[in-house]
């Protein structure tokens, strides 16, 4: 899908993190006013600001491609495929910013707080642990860091991340410059966090597109179109985080069953993917005009039936009877974790043995989900 980049729209609200202000007043950050009544001057300043901001925005656009590249690497890393260069993706994103000075910016929408800490540790191996353990060290030889974050991005909206970041922001040598986008983002922080972060908010609407940020989301439109094409019963809005959340609340036994189920589906999808890939290659060799189909296998025509799953469960002592397994599966179905792909009638009573069960997700997400199950 090609998007017209001339129509820009983006709304952002920036928070500037106020340093903990004790003795070091120099490190205060402030929003200040110019009381000058000269309106021409204001206009000039505004124009200058707009041009300079645009320049920054343009350079941002350049880096978007590299960001996407990084994202792939990031996903690979999360899947355990590329464990070597932990901070590679971050380095790429920050190449432009970290050339000259001690002050470094990190920016990536999918960044988690662990990545941030890894990043910090990479450069400050000696100090970071000491800093986090003991506040005593923060003034010694520690460089100054600025992080630009998509603070209410999906990866950072959880208690642990926010706690860690707030701890990080209390260190005097680290400042956070964050952007928040969601309209309810202020609900993210409790009083304790607000006090640790010491944010001061600035409305900085830029009308720039959220190209990178939204590319990580399951787009509503994309979901709709794929569902319509597949002809399944309505779209179920299944997201990775949602699945993980549901699975967390399920009993351990159910989780194990679901893990077995997933491993089967992943294997099946991978084998299909390979087959298709080899077929495509053959076709490509013979006929160059043939379009290269998607290499990511769809979950359609995959899955397993009840009987196979039951046998596996019996083998591994996960379920003692059909009825027990049925009850667990009903729960999965209620939470949309599985769908019955070949079902003619969707009623629970008729969950027949011949029906194919499948988790409606693409391969990459399935793998992440598989790894996240304890």
């Amino acid at each position, binding site marked *: 899908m090609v*998007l017209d980049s001339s*129509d820009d*729209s983006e*709304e952002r*609200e920036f928070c500037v993190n106020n340093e903990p*202000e*004790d*003795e070091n*007043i*120099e490190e*205060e*950050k*402030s*929003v*200040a*006013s*110019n*009381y000058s009544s000269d309106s021409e001057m*204001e206009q*000039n*300043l505004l124009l200058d*600001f707009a041009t*300079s901001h645009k320049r920054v925005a343009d350079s941002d656009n350049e880096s978007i491609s590299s960001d996407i590249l990084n994202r792939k690497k990031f996903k690979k890393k999360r899947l355990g495929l590329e464990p070597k260069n932990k901070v590679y993706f971050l380095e790429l994103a920050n190449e*432009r910013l970290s050339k*000259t000075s*001690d*002050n470094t910016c990190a920016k990536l929408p999918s960044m988690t707080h662990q990545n941030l800490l890894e990043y910090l540790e990479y450069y400050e191996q000696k100090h970071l642990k000491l800093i986090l353990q*003991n506040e*005593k060290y923060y003034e010694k*030889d520690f*460089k*100054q860091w600025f992080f630009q974050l998509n603070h209410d991005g999906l990866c950072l909206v959880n208690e642990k991340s926010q*706690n*860690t970041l707030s*701890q990080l922001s209390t260190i005097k040598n680290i400042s956070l410059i964050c952007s928040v*986008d969601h*309209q*309810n*983002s*202020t609900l993210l922080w409790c*009083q*304790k966090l607000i*006090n640790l972060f*010491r944010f*001061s*908010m*600035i*409305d*900085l609407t830029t*009308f720039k597109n*959220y190209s990178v940020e*939204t590319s990580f*989301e399951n*787009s*509503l*439109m994309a979901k*709709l179109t794929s569902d319509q094409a597949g002809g399944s019963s309505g*779209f*179920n*809005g299944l997201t990775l985080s949602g699945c993980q959340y549901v699975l967390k609340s399920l009993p351990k036994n159910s989780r194990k069953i679901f893990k077995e189920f997933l491993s089967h589906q992943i294997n099946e999808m991978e084998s299909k993917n390979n087959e298709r890939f080899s077929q495509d290659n053959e076709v490509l060799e013979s006929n160059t005009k043939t379009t290269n189909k998607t290499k990511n296998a769809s979950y359609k025509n995959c899955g397993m039936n009840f009987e196979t799953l039951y046998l596996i469960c019996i083998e591994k002592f996960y379920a003692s009877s059909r009825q027990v397994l049925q009850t667990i599966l009903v729960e999965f179905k209620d939470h949309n974790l599985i769908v019955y792909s070949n079902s003619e009638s969707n009623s629970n009573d008729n969950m027949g043995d011949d029906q194919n069960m499948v988790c409606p997700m693409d391969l990459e997400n399935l793998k992440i989900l598989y790894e996240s199950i304890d």
Partner: protein
Amino acid sequence: MSKSITSAITVEFPKNFVEIEQEDFSDSGSGIYDDFDNITEINNHPAKDVPLDYEFVSLFNFAESFENTKKRKFLLERALKNLNFISTKTINSFNSNITTRIATFINNCVQVDSPYSELPTALIFAGTNLPDHENLCIQLKYSIIKEYKFKTATLLNQNCQTIQHAMTSIIDQFMYINDEDAEYDNSLVIEGEPQDGSDKECEESTFDWRSERVISMLLIKHLPIFKGRSKPLSYDINLLRTWYKQKKTNQIKKLVIFVRDFESIEHKILCHVIQICSLNRSELPFVFVLFLATSMETINQNIPKNVLNLMSFEKFFTKQSSNFFDLITKNLFISSQTSSDCSDNEFNLKLSYNVFDLCWTKFNSHTLCVESYLKDIKFAVLDHYYGNPLSVLTDYDSKKGDDDVIEALQSYHFTEIRNLPSFKSYVNARKEKEAKKMRNLITDDVELKKFIKISLQDLDKYHQNFDTAFNIILSLRNNCHLASGKISLKVLYNFALKQNLLESPQIKFALKSMRKTISILEENSNQNLLEETVIFKKLLADFKSYEDEDYVSSSEASSSEDEISGKKLKRSLEFVETEKIYKRLKLETARNTKKKEKENLHVDKLSENYFFEKDLKENQNFIEKINGRTNKNSLCNFTDKIVDFYENFFRTNLKWHKFFPLNEIKYYSKESRLKKAFSSQPREALRNAFLNPTFYLQCECCSDIENFETELNKNQNDMVIVYKLFKESGKMINLYDWYISFGTVLDDGKIGLDPNLVLARFARCITQLQFLGFIKVTNKKVDHVLKLTFW
């Protein structure tokens, strides 16, 4: 470490809803922040020659002189330092009582070496204002270490993921941190107090505790438990035990573990920690201090009975944070600095009604946290000194004669002063009577300088006298009879900032209660008489100090005899009043000699009164001369006189600050800035952006659109169009209909648009709206999305 200062320029749009900040990290040299330098280059102004190392932005389009910019920076630093000093001092004095009590408990708690002994635990009910707990904890730690040389460790939420983490953190803190370390955390230590340990000493001590750990490690290796192991584990309690045995010669009596933010801590882990400590209590004298934000319930709910049995609790309640708020307000804004001890630590900036009300509302209905109140004040200070060019005059000291500041003012400053509303109203009010003088003020800079000097002096004087008058009203309202509803300091101060206090019911009420009190004195039968007299004595003590100051200043300022005799009359009235009270007091004491307690009390009061008596005798002749007509029996007349006098006193000293010219220099009133910075509303910002995009984009294509809220135009931004269509729909939106109407708006019939492009643009907008939280996927209806906001 490289120092970096943020500089910012804020530009306000006419409609006042957009604010753009630009930052300049002057030392950073990082590309993204170079923009500010570009601005200085673009504006070809003589002021661009200023040295590059300046850190504050030169105001008046960079025409402000370097000295003034530097001065503002210096003043800001001083103001923040003083604010910090005063707040720290207040915190220390506020918490000193409870800190001493807890420290004494920790010192005195006995641990019996028997199987049934319990871990002594202090439960501190510190209120829901969590951020304030930190100050209390630091202060407590400091006092414990300073007085008793105990060892302390703090268990925090982030250290409680596993029992290993928790134990390691505790053991490390006990073993690593020595006394110097604790004093290192001197955020709550008042400057000026002798601080131990220079850098060298610190290094030596660092070496000490490192080697100490090594030694204990070596010792531990030889213990039977560790035989065969190469290295003891960091969370092993035996590590602490060995260390303690070795340290015992230095007599560490207690090991205190602070548990801050009890509610959020992992209770299971905490229970394990308590159990481990309990097992080792015979060898290691642990004491627990738990900070609670809620009530006792939380302990009963979260800690099982078998663990509760291991502890013996002692409850401590801290004072309410609203009292703290009062105290801080009083010390910062009401107390006249000259009368207090710290004349060097002046904090001259005051908050105007809007700002104070905002802070108070935020405190009262949201946070109850003094830390956040201080944060607001700090922000106000920053903003004032950073953005207001007239802030160079805020700290003008009339007594020291800082005339250089006034001399250094530039023509821009004078223009700025002439534009101040208070100056304008001052000139307008006098333009007919004193036309020539007012004309001079507007045209002649030299005249204006004199005027500035006098006005600032007046303001200073006003603040000094306001303190006394305000305190008298407050104590009259709260202590005298008839005070049905007591009033807190902050409410009264809010009144004083909001409107002229003289016209408010507060003063009338105070005077009424005073009249009533004196009439009660007359009745001569009330047991509370003593209390009342004490109140009056307090008032008089306040008043006396004021009178002396005023007396001196007035004699210096004017030599008019009438005024001085007027003052003398007032003084004499005071003494008559005291005499009355004293005599009645004597009668009362004679009557009540039977009861021991009361007797003691009265004797105390009498001894206090001795000084008054002495004064009286000295002044007796003087009083009789001047006030010969005073009939001691006619108390009614006397009461009238007293009340009249107080009324006059209030009238002269409790004027509204807005009546003074140039009050804007000392009063910060940019409440909108505080609101935006600390209670911003992203939803409102988004809505504004969608409905008024031209204010942000300043594009020419939309200049012909008249009504932005309703009109749909294809030239508008896609998001704006989609949002307007979104606003028109109901609870559920049909995506197809939405898409069709979007297409209709875009397509004006002349040029056929590529339907794929329209779909792509629509899809992007929808995704972004979803990302911003305006719509949500729903299972209720096919092809529909759920609307999440309705305005």
